[in-house]
């Protein structure tokens, strides 16, 4: 199983800015309310989601790089627009819901290429990496994905 690390060189850009960082310590970037410390993802909320907190001030916070699979499924048909599929014949992929312990939240993300629902189970450990989502005229657009920590082909 391979993954492509995000490299800070020309031709590769995140598909969306500010939501994740690539490299060896690839991680999601959440936003933490400066008044009550509630963390949100994506980091685009204007107002704190805690109903008892009226703050609108957040600071970016790196989120846990590892988590456990809450659940998983496949995209067996090509999703409609605005999804942009890679060129060529559609290749089904896997989508995970991953539980982050410290943040006590579940976050979605595709699995890295090559991981199928048959390879994983609820509770498996995964870590965050960055891979290509699609290519456009400006180059590669990257997105966060989850990679199982244990080798594939383990007992199920």
């Amino acid at each position, binding site marked *: 199983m391979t993954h492509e690390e995000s490299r800070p060189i020309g031709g590769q850009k995140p*598909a*969306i800015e500010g939501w994740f960082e690539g490299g060896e310590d690839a991680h999601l970037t959440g936003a933490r309310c400066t008044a*009550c*410390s*509630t*963390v*949100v*993802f*994506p980091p*685009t909320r204007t107002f704190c*989601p*805690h*109903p008892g907190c009226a703050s609108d001030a957040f600071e970016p916070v790196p989120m846990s790089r590892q988590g456990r699979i*809450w*659940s*998983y*499924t*496949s*995209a*067996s*048909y090509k*999703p*409609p*627009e*605005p*999804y*942009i*599929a890679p060129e060529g014949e559609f290749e089904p*992929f*896997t*989508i995970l*819901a991953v539980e982050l312990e*410290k*943040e*006590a*939240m*579940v*976050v*979605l*993300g*595709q699995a890295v290429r090559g991981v199928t*629902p048959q390879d994983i*189970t*609820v*509770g498996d450990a995964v870590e965050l990496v960055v891979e290509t*989502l699609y290519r456009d005229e400006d180059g590669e657009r990257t*997105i966060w994905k989850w990679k199982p920590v244990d080798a594939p082909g383990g007992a199920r």
Partner: protein
Amino acid sequence: MSQQVFVLGAGMHPWGKWGRNFVEYGVVAARRALSDAGVDWQDVDFVAGANTVRNGYPGYVSGATFAQALGWNGAQISSSYAACASGAQAIASARAQILAGLSDVALVVGADTTPKGFLKPNSGERWDDPDWLRFRLLGATNPTYFGLYARRRMDLYGATEEDFARVKVKNAAHGLHNEYARYRKAFTMEDVLSSPMVADPLRLLQICATSDGAAALVLCSERYAKKHGATVRIGGLSTATPTFPQTIIEMPEFATDSSAQQPPPSHTFKESLAAGAYEAAGVGPADLNLAEVYDLSSALELDWYEDIGMCARGEAEGLVREGVTTIGGRCPVNPSGGLACFGEAVPAQAIAQVCELTWQLRGECGERQVEGAKVGLAINQGLFGHGSCTILLR
């Protein structure tokens, strides 16, 4: 003021796929409901429309659209959009007017015409809209979320593909006896399990379609009901929103709330919808004779059994294996055939659920009749924190 709100009439246009103007379907359903109620359209003083957001401006002002289509009669109106709970929000709107003494007899109408295939966002780029971004950044469709919930049942509770197929087979058998259902065909387990995989573990025949359809209700005050002989009343109706932190990943979000700073509430969002309606109606799960639940996927129906308190978490598969939720069992679920036989016509669907409860409580359902039905529950959930639960009593 009215202490109770009665359901005087119910009417539907069959579900299908014809691509005609949604207003046509809505008028048919409305006229059927009025006829069923024995009420003249010109006596209706309030029209609550359930909006469709895929049909341009007339769909956003459905109350007025249907009032105009039936012929302006000076009624007051409301137009509601609440995703899959739109119809229930329209019912709630009309109900509140009646309870407040501001309306005697209200018409509730919802209708839709729907595109083929996956439900997708309106065109154009919207980088601040999570419902747009989840397609662009993840390729997460609605079935994606259903697949996540289904897989969790398998890995945590030992649910099997056969369990999910069993729900579809049950609902298909129910829908054979429903003239308004779009799909009236008896599927076997083999049919279901050999249909193509869409969002593992869910196959095509386990995920509901999208349909054209329309449903309508005539609601009235106690005073009006006494004069017109209504026997079915709304016992409770909840359109509550979630309580922070929401711990179950919901369409169209990328993440749940964090429960690091604030512990989760005692009820999940869906449990809270049922709890609110039960409390208002003064009944509990043991009192239910039947339920209509939003089977967006056949696996999701099993989650609903637990959400409405029919059994403990993880035990829903047992209910369907034992036939408890099949017509003839202790508490049939989706005697109408459910979304499995209808497909979803967003603004009409919650109203259709209540039409079914009404006919069941009146004993008018023929071969799909639930014997002795006196307490019925309808529940659904939509994007962005929408949901509803309605309990009818006789």
